[in-house]
């Protein structure tokens, strides 16, 4: 066998097998990192002198918010690859990312509301960061609804890809919203361009939790991608070996 290239896994059955190999590893990494991250974040990290213990929401809020944005870009990327190269597996991967992205956007908003109440005195404000994150959730829901509304899978791939690609403009808006507008939401404590403005142990807990959520998302997206592939390829010959065998010979036609 030649060295696999990216196109090697463009065949649904190869990608199906690859996902099957990766899922248990990603889950194991996710569980281990979650235990470690929660131990640091909820157990070891000291209290915040300004916010008290409510700041500990950061260990779930920031990872879910990051993940919601990154998953959207990943979804739009694979949807675009599917659209441009007419690649079914890429479109299936985009389809598999959407529900997890929507859940992460929901959790970012939910944990943000529970953090906003004790620190700002309100569950919700129509602030640029919060509103653009709500739009992110609606984009995920719109993408999934559009897919579900179109019977033909290949047409659903193309239509939903256009929506995903157009919506990607919202991601930099979320990211820069705290700079571009005067928001109630605080600016970034961690960024690529300057050193973090938080204690080392808090930063460590947050990064471990972010990695844990990443591993979880890989696991669950690959697991869902396997189901999407089986659902959509069930007419193909290769899927039969993955199907349950009929219980008794002669029962099935």
């Amino acid at each position, binding site marked *: 066998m030649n060295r696999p290239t990216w196109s090697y896994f463009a065949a649904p059955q190869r990608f199906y097998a690859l996902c099957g190999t990766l899922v248990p590893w990603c889950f194991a990494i996710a569980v281990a990192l979650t235990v470690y991250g929660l131990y640091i974040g909820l157990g070891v990290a000291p209290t915040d002198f300004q916010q008290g*213990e409510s700041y500990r*929401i950061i260990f779930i809020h920031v990872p879910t918010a990051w993940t919601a944005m990154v998953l959207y870009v990943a979804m739009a990327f694979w949807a675009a690859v599917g659209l441009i190269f007419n690649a079914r597996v890429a479109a299936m991967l985009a389809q598999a990312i959407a529900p997890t992205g929507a859940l992460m956007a929901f*959790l970012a908003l*939910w*944990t943000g509301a529970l*953090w906003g109440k*004790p620190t700002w005195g309100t569950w919700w404000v129509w602030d640029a960061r919060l509103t653009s994150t709500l739009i992110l959730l609606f984009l995920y829901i719109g993408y999934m609804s559009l897919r579900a509304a179109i019977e033909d899978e290949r047409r659903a791939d193309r239509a939903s890809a256009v929506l995903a690609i157009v919506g990607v403009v919202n991601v930099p808006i979320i990211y820069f919203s705290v700079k571009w507008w005067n928001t109630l939401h605080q600016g970034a404590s961690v960024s690529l361009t300057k050193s973090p403005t938080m204690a080392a142990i808090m930063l460590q807990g947050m990064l471990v939790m972010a990695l844990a959520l990443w591993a979880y998302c890989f696991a669950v997206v690959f*697991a*869902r991608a396997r189901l999407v592939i089986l659902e959509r390829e069930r007419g193909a010959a290769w899927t039969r070996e993955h199907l349950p065998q009929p219980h008794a010979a002669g029962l099935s036609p």
Partner: protein
Amino acid sequence: MNLYWANWSDFWAMGGYGLYVWGSFGVSALVIALELWSLRQRRNALQSHLEASS
């Protein structure tokens, strides 16, 4: 790395912010559990559908 908490009741109280902190982590755990459960349901549905049509 020593634990920050002196006892369990301090841990659960979270300095008076227990509702917000545990509401965040609890709902996140619930959402993840529901996602895993729904994937399992989807797999079972696919399996029985394929069994019925094979």
